[in-house]
């Protein structure tokens, strides 16, 4: 088994395979099925300043090639996360944890960053500027390059020794511009992508299947779209890209490296196949040179 560790900003991760935000809660939940210490890390459910109850059920809807979700960022809130969940993780220094956070205002981002700055037990922050399941603000932040740059800067300044990833939405035409703004603001990586906005209707009631109408679409169906966004980001920035979207097999993961990613996250497919992330680690470790040679080289603007 070769060395497939990667460097993202100031942090070294043992390998490039992560579980995506919102999929495995605060990590501990999946410990019965996944050997978390074998992964590069896990990204937590997105944390907000105040606890959020989330959307009215039903919250998920299976489709033939993926699923819609309308969880609505249900989370325990910053205080409980820091007081209860983070200490639990401190007992497991072998698990790499990226904490996903979202906020409504710049001020809130400052507060969140300051609260995390002196903490241990996590590798960095992934800013969710792109959740389609909450009203207003969040998605708009991710659409606005000036704001993305500013938020990246005010957070990075406060956590210089941690890794800062900016998670981008696929629901815009020019993802490269947003990625470049994050890079200029000092982000260590671009995490691409979040869910696509989708909707489905119930033929019997004639209404959308979710109370809120639109929801986030994920799973195998979004693979080519996610690959394309990663490829665009790779042309736009020189910081690492963490590829996310539709990974259901080892080969799907390999394609993200071809598109220019340095790391990947498994999302929806974990529900069906909890062994997948570890199998991807094994496959990459069998041939470390492949990953290194492919990452970036093939996606550079010259290629």
């Amino acid at each position, binding site marked *: 088994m070769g060395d497939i560790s990667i460097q993202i900003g100031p942090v070294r991760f043992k390998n490039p395979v992560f579980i995506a935000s*919102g*999929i*495995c*809660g*605060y990590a*501990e*939940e*999946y*410990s*019965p*099925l996944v050997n978390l210490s074998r992964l590069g890390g896990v990204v937590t*459910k997105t944390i907000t300043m105040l*606890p959020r*109850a*989330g959307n*009215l*059920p*039903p*919250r*998920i*809807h*299976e*489709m*033939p*090639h*993926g*699923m819609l*979700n309308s*969880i609505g960022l*249900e989370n*325990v*809130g910053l205080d*409980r996360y820091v007081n*209860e*969940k983070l200490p*639990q993780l401190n007992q497991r220094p072998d698990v790499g944890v990226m904490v996903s956070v979202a906020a409504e205002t710049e001020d809130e981002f400052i507060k969140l960053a300051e609260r995390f700055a002196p903490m241990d037990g996590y590798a960095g922050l992934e800013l969710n500027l792109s959740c389609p399941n909450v009203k207003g603000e969040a998605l708009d932040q991710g659409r606005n390059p000036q704001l993305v740059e500013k938020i990246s800067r005010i957070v990075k300044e406060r956590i210089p020794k941690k890794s800062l990833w900016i998670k981008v939405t696929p629901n815009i035409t020019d993802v490269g511009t947003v990625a470049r703004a994050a890079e200029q603001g000092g982000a260590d990586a671009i995490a691409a992508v979040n869910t696509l906005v989708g909707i489905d209707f119930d033929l019997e009631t004639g209404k959308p299947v979710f109370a809120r109408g639109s929801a986030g679409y994920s*799973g*195998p*169906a979004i693979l080519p779209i996610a690959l394309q966004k990663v490829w665009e980001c790779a042309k736009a920035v020189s910081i690492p890209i963490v590829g996310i979207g539709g990974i*259901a097999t080892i080969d799907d993961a390999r394609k993200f490296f071809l598109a220019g990613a340095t790391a990947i996250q498994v999302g929806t497919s*974990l*529900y*069906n*196949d*909890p*062994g997948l992330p570890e199998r991807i680690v094994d496959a990459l470790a069998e041939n470390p040179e492949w990953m290194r040679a492919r990452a970036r080289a093939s996606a550079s603007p010259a290629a």
Partner: protein
Amino acid sequence: MGEFVPARAHEYHARVLSNVRLSRRYFLLRLERPRDFIDPAAGQFVHVAVPTPDDRFFLRRPFSIHDCTRDAIELVIVEVGPGSQALRRAREGDTLHFYGPLGHAYPVLPEKRIVAIGGGVGLAPLYFYGFRAPGKLGEGYRLLYGARTREDLFLEHVALERTGVSLATDDGSYGFKGNVVQLAAAVIEEEPADVLFSCGPTVMMKAVQKLADRLAIPHYASLENRMGCALGACRACVVPTKLDGGSPYRTVCHDGPVFDASVLQWDELPVP
């Protein structure tokens, strides 16, 4: 809410021992019990991967444990949509992937007079309670089972009547004529109950809760909801409760599926 305690579950690959039709809509799927499968309690479930002949995407499907012996795990499955239909096609010798056992079970109450009320496929965990672990049918455990019509009773393999289970059909084609909650009320009239258990359609369990309120006795109900992780991680399967602790929502997969029914917001439960 205290500290989160992860499920005691593992991923297993099990051979299909048999897969037979029980009635018009039900089939019995018997899986070889993996050697290290943790002893399940009645009300717990397994999360089963749907075998896919093509590239269709499937979330796993939750099914209650209907029986578990040293050698076999049994599931009773009703055909609803593509997932249950694909499982119906599983053949002897095929391998199925699942994880479990998951969730909170019915409480063990050896000294209590329990009346358990099952509707449709909801009989599965109540049967397990009465016939294996930990209750004993007849010794303080009365099991009532209702279906719409005779064809929907899935009984032949258990021959429930002989074992003292009371049956009801809405159309009177078998057993008591009427719904199973009416039967429960009549049965309790004759000999009182200390606790009610229920598993079945939401309308039925809601009626059981009314009965429990009227009799002022506890009621434990097993809920269903769409699931992603089945481990308490994704918050897909939540139901509204009267509890607080930061949020009124509790997960069916990890806080349930069996709940003290008095804490549930019965009027707002989602229909999966």
